[in-house]
Structure formats: C-alpha cells, structure tokens
C-alpha cells in the first residue's frame, strides 16, 4: 500500500522536470559514481524527480549501471 501511495503522492520536495533531468543525466551519473552526496548538491531536485518519474528513473538506473560497468 505504501508503494501505491508513494506513486500517487510522489516526492514532496521540489524536483526538476523530465527535460532538465535528461539534460543533466550524464553529469549527475558521473558525480554519483564519484560521490552521491555531491550529485544531489550539484543538481538539486534530481533525486526527487528520479523517484517520482518511473521512466526517467529507469533510464537513470541503466546509465548508472553502464557507466559503472565501463569503469569496473
């Protein structure tokens, strides 16, 4: 139930748009690989958007995984 409510209500704080998310995604992912806290500082509202938008969230997860695989 909590999961369904979460999907209905979304993130409570400010979040970026899908457009901004795509524009910043590569920078955010590289910062995340180095230091996740710095990533959120650099792009405020990105984490909230990735939790609220399933499509952007999925694409972020794939890019993060791919970059990590490349660097392994």
């Amino acid at each position, binding site marked *: *139930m*909590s999961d*369904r*409510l*979460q*999907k*209905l*209500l*979304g*993130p*409570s704080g400010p*979040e970026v*748009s*899908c*457009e901004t998310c*795509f*524009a910043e*995604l*590569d*920078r955010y*992912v*590289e910062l995340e690989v180095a230091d996740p806290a710095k990533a959120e500082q650099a792009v405020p509202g990105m984490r909230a958007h990735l*939790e*609220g*938008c*399933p*499509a952007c969230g*999925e*694409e972020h997860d*794939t*890019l993060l*995984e*791919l*970059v990590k*695989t*490349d660097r392994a």
Partner: protein
Amino acid sequence: MTPQVAATVRAVAVPARARKTTAKPLLDPESRAWLRALQSDGGEREEAVERLHELLLKAARFEVRRRSALMPHLRGDSVDEIAEESASDAIVSVLAKLDDFRGESRFTTWAYKFGILEAAVKLRRRAWQGREIPIEPELWSLEPDTHLAPDAQAAQSELLEEVRRGIEQALTPHQRRVLVAVALNDVPIDVLAERLGSNRNALYKTLHDARAKLRAHLAEHGLADRLAVEGGTS
C-alpha cells in the same frame, strides 16, 4: 550501420557553432578527440561516426537486455531489432545536438543516454502495443493492506477514502486521467503521452500538479501526519 542510416547521418549537418569548435575548457582528452573527429570532414568523420554507432548500439543493447528479462514475449530477433533501431535513431540525435555537449561529463556518458532513451521508449511502446490504456477514473481501486491489525487497517481505510475523494474532487479530469493511468495502472508516461498526443515533459508536469493538489487535499482534511506513517512523504 545500415546504408539508410549512413545516408541519414551524412545528411545531418554539423552545427555551425560546433564546427568552430566552441571552447569547452572542461573537456577530457578522449572527449575532445571524439568531438574533433565528429566535427571534421571526410574519412575521419566517417570513421568516428562508425565508432559512435557502435557506442550507441552498446548502450541500446544494455537497456534492452536489462528490460527484456521482464518481457518474456520478446523474441531474440525483436531484441536485436529494437537495439539496432534505437542506435540508428540515437545517432541522428547525437549528431544534431553535438553543440549541446558541454563537457561536464565524458562524451561517451553523454552519448550513451541517447541510446538508452531510444531503447527504453521503444521497449515501453512495444510492451503496450495493442493494449488498451486504462485511463478512465472508474477503472481504479484502492484497497487497504490486509495484513495490518484491525485498528491500523481502519486508519488506512480512512486515509484511502480521503485519497479517493481527493482524486475525484480536487483534480481536473485531465489530471485525474494522468494520475490514474500512471500512478495506479502503471502505464508508462511516454506511452500515455503518445496516445494523448502529448510529450513526457508536459504529462509529468500534469502528474506533478495532480500530486500537489492531492497532498494539499489530504492536508486540508488533517491527514498530513498520516502520510508519514504510510511512507508517502519522502
């Protein structure tokens, strides 16, 4: 790369500002080499475009393989076809947007996201091909968790009843359709956007506004604290 894609790629002009190699002080040597080759002429550019196609195919395959595990009906040849089509579409986007690359990540990371986006959108559309999209308000239900103790279940039922009232009363018909489809029926936002003749960015804005109204409705009815208990405040 198919001959058709190669022809399309040849037709994508290098943006004028990019041709002058806009100063990008943050560029690492590998990214600078990619940009220089893609903005050059003749054989050097053709060779770079081939490598870019391979890079985008790798990103598209990575996405397709991750998602295809959840799509058992996808056959092997469909998987390859989606990856190929995605790489071909992505290469056109990358070449057209070269000037947007700010050098704030590696060039390869920047390019990957185009391949992943194309593959992800194609996979979602394939999964919903021929399926009716449940967007009508009457097609949703909210049931309390059955494993809860009776008093907790009663409290959750009260919250859900107010959520239902909020969806019915506080939202516009368009906001209701989008929220019900995406948040309750798990319709991918870009599939819904395609059916409604909209785009992901615009529909997410609608979803965001609907969620804000729903939160405000619950707060007006004294249920803001209850959301924390149910995990709806992150």
